[in-house]
C-alpha cells in the first residue's frame, strides 16, 4: 500500500465532538442509529471518497445501535480502527463491523448506567444541591464544571483506548478493569444513598401521642423573673437563674408533649424515610412506574395531612 490513509488526531477529535450528539435523533425503531453515523462521519468522510463507498459506509452505520451515551466512545474508537484497516484494503467484512458494535454495546450499557446515572450524577448532584440550597452559586458552577471534566475526559480517553487497541479492547473491557469500576462505584453509591435517605427525606409526624404533666420540681420557675419584670427591677442574676434552670434540663412547659415523630426518632433517626424508601424499591421491583408512585405519594401526603398524621 503506497499511501495508507491514516486517521489523524484531528479526525479523532471531531469524532469525539460529534459523539456528544449521539442521542439527538434517538428513535423507537433503531434508537441511536443516526447519531452513531453522525459521530463516525468525520472518520468515514476521510476514509472514503467515492459516492458508492460513502453510501455503503453510511448504510452499515445506520443500523440499530443503542448503548449508554458515554460508553459509545470506546466502541467508536474500535470501529474507527476497523474502518481504517478496511479502507486500506484489509479484509474487514460488514459482519465484523456489525459484530463488534453489537457485541460491545450491551455489556457496556450495563457498565455506564450504574457508574454514571446511579453513582456519579446523583452524588455530584447531591453535593452541589446542598450548596445551592444554602444559597451558594458554587452549587451549579461546580456541578457543570466537574461533570464536563469527568464526561469529556472519559469520552476522549476511552475512545483513544479503543482506537489504539482495536478489537483487543473487548477482552480488556469485559475482563477486569470496567467491572472493578462498576463494583467500586456501586459500593460508593449505595453508601451515599444510605446517608441521603434519612438526611433529606422530610416526614414530620406531629400527632400528639401523650401529654404528661411535668412535676413542679422539674419545671423552670419563671415567677421570680416575671414578678421582677412587672416591678421593673429585673437583674442579671434572676435571668441567669432561669437560663441555668433551662440548661439544667428542666421543662419550660407544664406538660411534656410526645409526638409520634419523637417516638420514631427514639427508635432510630430516619426510620420512617428508610421504610418509605424500601417500600419504593419494592414497588419498583414489582414494575410499578415511578410516576405512579410519585403521584400516589402526593395523594398520601394530602390524606395524611388532612388526618393530622403528617405535618407540613
Amino acid at each position, binding site marked *: 500500500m503506497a499511501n495508507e490513509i491514516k486517521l489523524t488526531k484531528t479526525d479523532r477529535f471531531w469524532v469525539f465532538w460529534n459523539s456528544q450528539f449521539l442521542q439527538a435523533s434517538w428513535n423507537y425503531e433503531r*434508537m441511536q442509529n443516526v447519531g452513531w453515523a453522525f459521530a463516525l*462521519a468525520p472518520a468515514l468522510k476521510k476514509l472514503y471518497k467515492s459516492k458508492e463507498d460513502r453510501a455503503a459506509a453510511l448504510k452499515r452505520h*445506520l443500523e440499530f445501535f443503542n448503548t449508554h451515551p458515554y460508553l459509545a466512545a470506546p466502541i467508536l474508537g474500535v470501529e474507527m480502527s476497523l474502518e481504517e484497516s478496511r479502507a486500506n484494503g484489509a479484509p474487514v467484512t460488514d459482519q465484523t463491523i456489525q459484530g463488534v458494535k453489537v457485541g460491545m454495546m450491551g455489556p457496556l450499557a450495563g457498565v455506564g448506567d450504574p457508574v454514571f446515572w446511579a453513582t456519579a450524577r446523583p452524588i455530584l448532584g447531591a453535593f452541589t444541591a446542598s450548596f445551592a440550597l444554602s444559597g451558594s452559586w458554587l452549587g451549579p458552577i461546580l456541578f457543570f464544571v466537574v461533570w464536563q471534566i469527568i464526561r469529556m475526559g472519559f469520552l476522549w480517553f476511552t475512545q483513544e483506548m479503543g482506537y489504539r487497541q482495536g478489537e483487543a479492547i473487548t477482552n480488556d473491557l469485559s475482563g477486569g478493569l470496567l467491572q*472493578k469500576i462498576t463494583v467500586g462505584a456501586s459500593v460508593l453509591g449505595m453508601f451515599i444513598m444510605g446517608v441521603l435517605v434519612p438526611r433529606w427525606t422530610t416526614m414530620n409526624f406531629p400527632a400528639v401521642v401523650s401529654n404528661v404533666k411535668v412535676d413542679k420540681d422539674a419545671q423552670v420557675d419563671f415567677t421570680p423573673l416575671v414578678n421582677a419584670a412587672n416591678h421593673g427591677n429585673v437583674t442579671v442574676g434572676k435571668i441567669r437563674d432561669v437560663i441555668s434552670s433551662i440548661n439544667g434540663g428542666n421543662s419550660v412547659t407544664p406538660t411534656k408533649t410526645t409526638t409520634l415523630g419523637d417516638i420514631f426518632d427514639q427508635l432510630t433517626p430516619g426510620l420512617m424515610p428508610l421504610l418509605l424508601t424500601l417500600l419504593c424499591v419494592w414497588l419498583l*421491583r414489582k414494575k410499578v412506574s415511578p410516576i405512579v*408512585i410519585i403521584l400516589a*405519594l402526593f395523594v398520601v*401526603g394530602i390524606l395524611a395531612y388532612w388526618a393530622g398524621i403528617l405535618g407540613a
Partner: protein
Amino acid sequence: MSFLSIIGILIVSFLAGMEGVLDQFEFHQPILACSLIGLASGHPAEGLALGGSLQLIALGWMNIGAAVAPDAALASVAAAILVCVKNTSVSNGVALAIPLAVAGLVLTILVRTVATFLAHGADAAGKRGSFAGVYAYHFIALSLQGLRIAIPAALIMAVPTHVVTDLLAALPDIVTNGLKVGGGMIVAVGYAMVINMMATPALWPWFFLGFALASLSEITLIGMGIIGVVLALLFLQVSPEFNKTSGGSSSDDGGDPIDDILNDY
C-alpha cells in the same frame, strides 16, 4: 418582563430540551436549568433555591436503555418560570414540577416517535452518500427536542401572572400543605430508583452502613463522600472476586492451594 429576559428564558429552555435527550452537558438538570432561568429572569435567588430542591428529587431520574424517566427538563424549566416569573412559592413550584415531569415524558415520547420517520430520511440521504443530508435530519430531530421544551415555556410565560396566582390561591389549604408533605416524601422515589439500579444482596450492607452513619450530623456530606470512597477502595482490595492472582505468580506468594486450583479453571 423585558424582551431580553424572554429571549434568555427561551434559550435556556431550548438547551434544556436538547440536553433532555443528549444527556451530555446536563442543562436539563434542575440545578442548572432552574438557576439559569433565575438568572435570565432577574430572580437568581429563587431559581437557585428551586434548582437545589428539585435536584434532590430528580437524583434518580435517568434514561436507561429504551425506558424514559420522568422528564427533568420540562419539570425544571416550567417550574422555574412559575417561581421566577409568576411569583409562585418554591414549595408550590416543587409540587407543580411533578405533573409537568409527566407531561414532559409524553412530549418526549412523541418527539422520539417523530424521529423514527426522520431516521428514514437519513437512510435516503445515506443511499445518496450524502453526509450533509444525514446531518440535516439529525439536527432537525435535535431541534424538535429543543422545541419540545421551548414551546411550553413560551406558553407558560404568555399566561398572565394573576391567573397563575389566582389558581393557586383558590386551592384549599389542605391541598397545598398536603402537596408540601408529598413533596418532602418523593425524594424517596428518586433514591429508590438509584438503589434499584445498583442493589445486589452483596451491596445492601453498604446502604445500611450509610444509613446508620447518617445520624452523625457532625460528618458533612463531603466527609461522607470520603468515607464512601475509602470503603469502596478497601472493598476492591479485599473482595476475593478481584483477587484472583493470575497465572504463575500465585505460587510464589504462598497463596491458598484451593485458590490456586480454582484459578486454574
